């Protein structure tokens, strides 16, 4: 059987739709893999690994350890396939193994690296940026609290790379579940359905975690820009 050809190696988030393995096709794929079909295995490894590295990298401290987590995940998939019951899609199952491994690897690393010593960004927007209840226009931005447009970083510039790195550092300080959701949705470009399935959470819960995570990262990004202006 032929699966979709998807090229690896792109830094852009992959549209997950092309890889959504649904119903019959997923069953066929699992059957092929169980029979030892090397081409089928090569295709999913090439197609899914870039997304997996992106997700893993948000939990661990180096590119090398993200790659290792992905490799270990595939080895676990090879070993576990005979027992895979197909209650979720294959991709969901792979992403679940990956996330669990990446998180525990990150936990081990954070004991030895200064990653967790970074100040975690605040979740909500500072209430002092809004007029209080006893002022006119309660709940509206104060002149000083009002957000300003962020200056564009020229793509490919050192500053842009630096800010992206700082954003990743802030992401790594998020609580585990927020980190998982933001990594899968925004860094890896998965759909909310895929994320809910992989993390076994409800759509509402997924949005709450996404909201808290994104809000904290927006705060971090805004601070980076303000610092840059000084």
């Amino acid at each position, binding site marked *: 059987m032929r699966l979709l050809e998807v090229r690896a190696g792109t830094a852009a988030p992959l549209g997950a739709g092309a890889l959504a393995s649904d119903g019959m096709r997923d069953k066929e794929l699992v059957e092929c893999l169980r029979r030892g079909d090397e081409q089928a295995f090569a295709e999913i490894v090439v197609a899914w690994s870039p997304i997996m590295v992106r997700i893993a990298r948000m939990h661990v401290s180096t590119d090398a350890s993200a790659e290792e987590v992905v490799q270990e995940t595939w080895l676990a998939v090879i070993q576990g396939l005979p027992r895979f019951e197909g209650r979720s899609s294959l991709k969901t199952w792979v992403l679940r193994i990956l996330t669990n491994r990446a998180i525990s690897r990150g936990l081990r690393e954070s004991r030895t690296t200064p990653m967790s010593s970074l100040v975690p960004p605040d979740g909500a927007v500072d209430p002092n940026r809004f007029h209080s209840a006893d002022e006119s*226009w309660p709940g509206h931005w104060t002149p000083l609290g009002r*957000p300003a447009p962020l200056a564009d970083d020229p793509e490919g510039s050192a500053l842009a790379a630096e800010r992206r790195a700082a954003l990743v550092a802030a992401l790594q300080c998020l609580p585990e579940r927020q980190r998982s959701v933001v990594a899968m949705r925004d860094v890896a470009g998965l759909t909310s359905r895929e994320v809910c399935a992989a993390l076994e959470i409800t759509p509402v819960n997924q949005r709450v975690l996404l909201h808290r995570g994104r809000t904290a990262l927006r705060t971090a990004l805004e601070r980076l820009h303000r610092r840059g202006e000084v």
Partner: protein
Amino acid sequence: MAGAKEHGGELSCQELVELVTDYLEGALDERTSARVAAHLADCDGCADYVEQMRATVSMLGRVETSSLDEVALAELMAAFRTFHTDQRG
């Protein structure tokens, strides 16, 4: 209230920032979504806030990561082959 009108209707900015993700996700009911849209049309501060959220998301999508190299891919293929050879044998 003139103040609220100027700032875009009944939603306050502080309420709006908590609805941004649901709004961007298309998860709000029609009425609330319309209130958010109306507020954004009138309030530059919130429009900039939403823009900052979008910028954050888009920047996360552009984070550069490495990928598995040829050696790693070859190791995985070998592991797959060995596993299935052992199973048959």
